[in-house]
């Protein structure tokens, strides 16, 4: 059989292949030849064949059949064989193949070989791919070699020990004695690997860490070595661009970091050297910056004094200005880690960081973006937002979602004004509308609802935004919702903040219908649009028929969600038309779920189910006490079957006739929580005055003075609702003309059985003296039978140190208040 071709011959041949198929063919042919050669147990050419196999393995072809051959090479006496054998073992074998255990004995022998280069091969192989079983078996040998005076072997043994510890941490203890004198070595290789070994031990075991800190006094030793490195003159062997052994310096700095962490004494002992390194290191080349970087990481991690920390952050700030983008990248990553703890120091570099948003490199942009968001605060929010919005405009799509979310969060926390907040949101929606996260839509809607005075402005801007382009779903969803809610403001041209636009009802419906029809609209968006159109039926006056038509068309939509909505809305038009206005009323202000920082939140007195208007008309499945049902209840009317039983209003008639006994019980109906003891602050079933349900104030119902005694005067003023003639809203005002305040003031009222009453929370419980202020409270009275209004009131308060109480009847209600 002819001699197998040489390695270089094979390489040359393979490189001539012009196609993948050709190469594969050559390789297969050669593999076959190698296999038969292996079968013949040919000692002479085994080495050559394995070498070729390794080359083919590097190209990506299977070479597992060479594994055993490697073992044979390792066992050979020839150095050439061993060299290739060990290389093969490192490339082809690992702990997943049981075959590797056969190596253990060979390695053991070679660790004790007379030639240091053989020993070196063995140590290297063990240190690179030794499995835990191998490590256990051979740890003793490694430990022996760790104590040898041969620095060539010592350094390899140290790294081998590191690997052993990583694989079998329990063996750490046995290497401890050998570490005693490691740092006394002059040889840089030994020094370096020793530091690595000590680092590994300290990182893994807090006991070791404590031991090295106290008993071995490691910190002073390391400081000394580092100092020598910096001070010493030029050493050509270890020099890199004028810096002496930067690899060793960096490893020492890293070990110092671990030793100084959470330890005041150690941190103090290294303060000086850290300052020295930070100020004296040359920064013109990458190597100097590598050392500075490690120094900064160490300073930030130990208990360093504040001057040092500021120095560190300033170094990072300088890094940001460096031309080399690797250094900028590294600086941004580190600043991100420190921004929480050293916020003010990082703020000083804000403008540089913001400049990095314009960098070409994607990783740098991302880090800069994250860092920018971390730096936004109340003072810089306007400027920062401008930059970030510009960034949102021009950045890659993968950033847009995160950037949009970040902007929303920051705007929520630090918005200087409502108008600015709305503008910012609008800008994000129009710039990156399709990247906004799904959960942003309800949050935005909530925000818009809360900014009561901006409704007209908001809806106008949103309308203009989708007029041109209704493809961005989140934007369209928010816009549809707003148009549905505030469409009346839109057509009435009420905007204060900017020039109001002229829009007709038809034009508004046009755009909503376009959204409904468009192929670009998601199903959810269509739902929003349909509901918006429906809501407009109570806000628009001339186009109700058109709305009815649109709604009925979708009663046969394929989309089940749309169909259901349309069918129910149709039913609303037909059978429940009297309920429609109240159901589709303006949404009350919603209570914020998350409050972070100084946003102005209009608190409602009670939560309203936000789902009321978005979902189907209430079924009997709603729980008692839900606000929506109280609403229904108030609407009264005999043709509604009472959906939810409210608290039973029956009270035994007292001896006093129709008027109830006030002394024990008060019939405060309409509230589901009717405890026998009267509660004053009832959970109101309707939101308070910030969102008036009764949009009109009945002109000309005269107010009355219901009570006036002992300096306490109570006036009643009245409102009637257009939409429900049975409801009267009474606002009481209590004033105090004496010279002392009245405190703990409580107002209670009772009405005849045919009425229903609800008392909202009073504005306070103190009536200040000298008529300098009043308490206001709202009473809502339902009077379906249009009977004459009568009321008995009970007043309790503290005045001049004593408790006062009085009962009175109010009979002088003007006829307009109840007829």
């Amino acid at each position: 059989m002819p001699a197998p071709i040489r390695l270089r011959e094979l390489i040359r041949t393979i490189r001539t292949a012009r196609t993948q198929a050709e190469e594969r063919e050559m390789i297969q042919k050669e593999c076959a030849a190698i296999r038969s050669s292996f079968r013949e147990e040919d000692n002479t050419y085994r080495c050559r064949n394995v070498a070729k196999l390794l080359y083919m393995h590097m190209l990506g072809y299977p070479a597992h059949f060479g594994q055993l051959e490697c073992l044979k090479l390792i066992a050979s006496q020839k150095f050439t064989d061993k060299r290739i054998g060990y290389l093969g073992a490192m490339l082809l074998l690992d702990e997943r193949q049981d075959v590797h255990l056969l190596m253990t004995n060979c390695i053991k022998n070679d660790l004790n070989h007379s030639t240091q280069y053989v020993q070196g091969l063995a140590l290297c192989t063990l240190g690179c791919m030794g499995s835990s079983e191998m490590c256990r078996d051979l740890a003793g040998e490694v430990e022996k070699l760790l104590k040898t005076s041969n620095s060539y072997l010592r350094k390899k043994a140290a790294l081998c020990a590191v690997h052993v510890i990583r694989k079998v941490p329990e063996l750490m203890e046995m290497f401890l004695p050998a570490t005693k004198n490691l740092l006394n070595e002059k040889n840089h290789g030994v020094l370096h690997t020793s530091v690595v070994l000590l680092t590994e031990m300290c990182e893994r075991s807090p006991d070791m860490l404590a031991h090295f800190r106290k008993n071995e006094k490691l910190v002073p030793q390391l400081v000394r070595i580092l100092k020598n490195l910096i001070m010493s003159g030029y050493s050509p062997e270890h020099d890199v661009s004028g810096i002496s052994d930067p690899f060793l310096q960096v490893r020492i700095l890293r070990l110092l970091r671990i030793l100084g962490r959470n330890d005041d004494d150690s941190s103090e002992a290294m303060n000086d050297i850290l300052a020295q390194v930070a100020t004296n290191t040359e920064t013109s080349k990458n190597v100097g910056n590598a050392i500075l970087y490690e120094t900064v990481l160490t300073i930030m991690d130990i208990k360093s004094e504040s001057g040092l920390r500021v120095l560190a952050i300033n170094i990072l700030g300088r890094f940001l200005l460096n031309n080399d983008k690797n250094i900028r990248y590294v600086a941004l990553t580190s600043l991100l880690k420190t921004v929480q703890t050293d916020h003010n120091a990082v703020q000083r570099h804000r403008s540089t960081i913001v400049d990095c948003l314009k960098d070409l490199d994607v990783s740098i942009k991302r880090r800069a973006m994250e860092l920018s968001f971390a730096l936004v605060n109340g003072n810089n929010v306007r400027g920062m937002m401008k930059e970030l919005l510009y960034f949102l405009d021009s950045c890659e799509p993968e950033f847009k979602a995160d950037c949009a979310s970040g902007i929303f969060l920051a705007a929520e926390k630090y918005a200087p004004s409502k108008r600015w907040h709305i503008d910012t949101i609008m800008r994000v929606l129009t710039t990156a509308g399709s990247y906004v996260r799904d959960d942003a839509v309800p949050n935005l809607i909530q925000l818009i609802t809360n900014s009561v005075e901006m409704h007209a402005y908001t809806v106008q801007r949103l309308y203009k935004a989708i007029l041109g382009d209704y493809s961005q779903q989140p934007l369209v969803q928010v816009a549809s919702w707003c148009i549905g809610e505030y469409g009346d403001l839109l057509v009435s041209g009420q905007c204060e903040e900017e020039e109001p636009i002229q829009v007709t009802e038809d034009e508004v419906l046009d755009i909503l219908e376009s959204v409904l029809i468009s192929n670009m609209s998601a199903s959810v968006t269509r739902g929003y649009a349909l509901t918006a159109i429906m809501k407009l039926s109570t806000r628009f006056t001339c186009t109700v028929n058109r709305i009815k038509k649109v709604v009925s068309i979708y009663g046969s939509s394929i989309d089940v969600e749309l169909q259901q909505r349309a069918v129910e809305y149709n039913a609303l038009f037909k059978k429940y038309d009297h309920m429609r206005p109240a159901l589709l009323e303006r949404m009350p202000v919603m209570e914020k779920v998350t409050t972070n920082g100084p946003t102005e939140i209009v608190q409602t007195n009670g939560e309203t189910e936000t789902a009321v208007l978005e979902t189907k008309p209430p079924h009997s499945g709603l729980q008692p006490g839900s606000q929506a049902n109280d609403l229904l209840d108030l609407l009264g009317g005999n043709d509604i079957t009472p959906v939810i039983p409210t608290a039973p209003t029956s009270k035994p008639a007292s001896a006093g006739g129709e008027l109830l006994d006030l002394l024990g019980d008060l019939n405060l109906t309409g509230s589901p929580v009717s405890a026998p003891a009267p509660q004053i602050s009832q959970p109101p079933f309707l939101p308070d005055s910030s969102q008036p349900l009764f949009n009109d104030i009945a002109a000309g119902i005269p107010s009355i003075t219901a009570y006036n005694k002992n300096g306490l005067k109570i006036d009643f003023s009245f409102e009637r609702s257009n939409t429900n003639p049975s409801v009267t809203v009474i606002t009481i005002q209590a004033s105090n003309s004496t010279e002392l305040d009245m405190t703990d003031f409580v107002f209670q009222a009772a009405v005849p059985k045919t009425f229903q009453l609800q008392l909202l929370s009073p504005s306070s419980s103190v009536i200040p003296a000298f008529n300098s202020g009043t308490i206001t409270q709202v009473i809502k009275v339902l009077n379906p039978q249009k009977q004459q209004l009568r009321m008995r009131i009970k007043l309790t308060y503290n005045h001049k140190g004593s408790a006062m109480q009085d009962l009175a009847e109010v009979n002088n209600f003007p006829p307009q208040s109840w007829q």
Partner: protein
Amino acid sequence: VCSCSLSCFCLYFPRYASLYFCCAIEDQDNELLTLEVVHRYVELLDRYFGNVCELDIIFNFEKAYFILDEFIIGGEVQDTSKRSAVKAIEDSDMLQETVEEYMNKPAF
């Protein structure tokens, strides 16, 4: 240099003319120093081969590995002296048997 990070390590790709290097490091490793490590390795190759070029590495890949093994073990640098790493390789090369010696020496 480009980089990408995965959850447990980062990849760095320094480029030397037509040669691309790929290096995976862990979280706590100093990225800038890694660039120096790769640079040092190239210097070692250069010293050994004399004006190293791509073809040197292709046709002597096993030597490239040997040099690497004198520079790094188990992911950590073992010697920071340019001279000693190359010297160790050259000495080992001397240990390699000549063809005649190889043929005549018993394997086991």
